[in-house]
């Protein structure tokens, strides 16, 4: 059935943690790049320094976005696991109530 959702729920917390760690790694890169620009107005190197600084700005922005996207995956996995746990707990309680 195409709408069926088959997920290894037990692995979700670990997967979420991995995504969160990689998001942090990419976020740290963004922070590093923000300090890598070279303030310079000097002869002969100016075009290269300008291009380099533009590259820094672009990849600082991209890695900042990467952090957000990866963190959102981690958050989605965490939310999915919490929803699953909540549902399972509810079903267990319901089954218990039926038994009484």
């Amino acid at each position: 059935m195409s709408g069926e959702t088959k997920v290894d729920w037990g692995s979700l917390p670990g997967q979420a943690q991995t995504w969160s760690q990689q998001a942090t790694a990419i976020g740290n890169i963004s922070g590093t790049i923000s300090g890598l620009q070279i303030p310079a107005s000097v002869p002969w190197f100016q075009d290269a320094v300008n291009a380099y600084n533009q590259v820094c700005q672009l990849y600082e922005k991209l890695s900042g976005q990467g952090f957000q996207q990866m963190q959102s995956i981690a958050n989605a996995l965490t939310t999915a696991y919490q929803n699953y746990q909540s549902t399972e707990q509810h079903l267990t309680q319901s089954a218990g109530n039926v038994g009484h």
Partner: protein
Amino acid sequence: MTFSPSAYNALITKLEAAPGEIISKTNQVISAVNSAVGWIPLLGDAIDWALNKLKGLIESLVNKLNQVLQPARIPPDMWAMGQEWEQIRGQAGTVASTLAGQQEKFGQEWGGIAGGKYNSGVPLQISAASAFSSAANNVMSNCDTIASGGSMFYIAVGTAVASVIVAITAAIISAPTGVGPIISLCAGVVFTLGSIATAIYSLHFTVDGAARNLQGSLTPSSSFPGGAWPIATAQ
């Protein structure tokens, strides 16, 4: 060429001292010539002309050296930035390989709608991290090119300046014998100015190439659709 910060700093320290040394030694030449032959009629006029020529050339050389030294901190800065980008290349590569490992491990355990979303979103994140690592490698490579090109430029300038200092030092002894040694020294200074101009041309060639390569990095690869990090479809 491997960039050596300590060797580079030693070279720049020498170059920074060069204008003062050149002026001091040139003054010694002028003083020695004037006291030896400047008083001689007719010859004195020729000596004055030659010394004025020498003064003008030395002034040009000193001005050029001061100009050359203005961007001296760029090569070591670029080298240091290259080291940083090397770290970034490795860190982004680790992110890509970690996520690829996770997809390999868990990708097949996902199914249905959630699995489809997960498995279509994850590869985009992996390829973006991988492309980021490649871009960092390109930036590192061009930082190193600029650092090396700058270093070679200052080595060339240093060699030219060292030879002219030797010539001026020799002229302190030989110049008092007449106009000829002063004219020779002028020719030596002209040659040094020419050598510096050639070194500047070579530097332009190297730095412009690196600038073009860096500008190429401003157009991100297809792994960044629309110039942005791919959207996480699992959100």
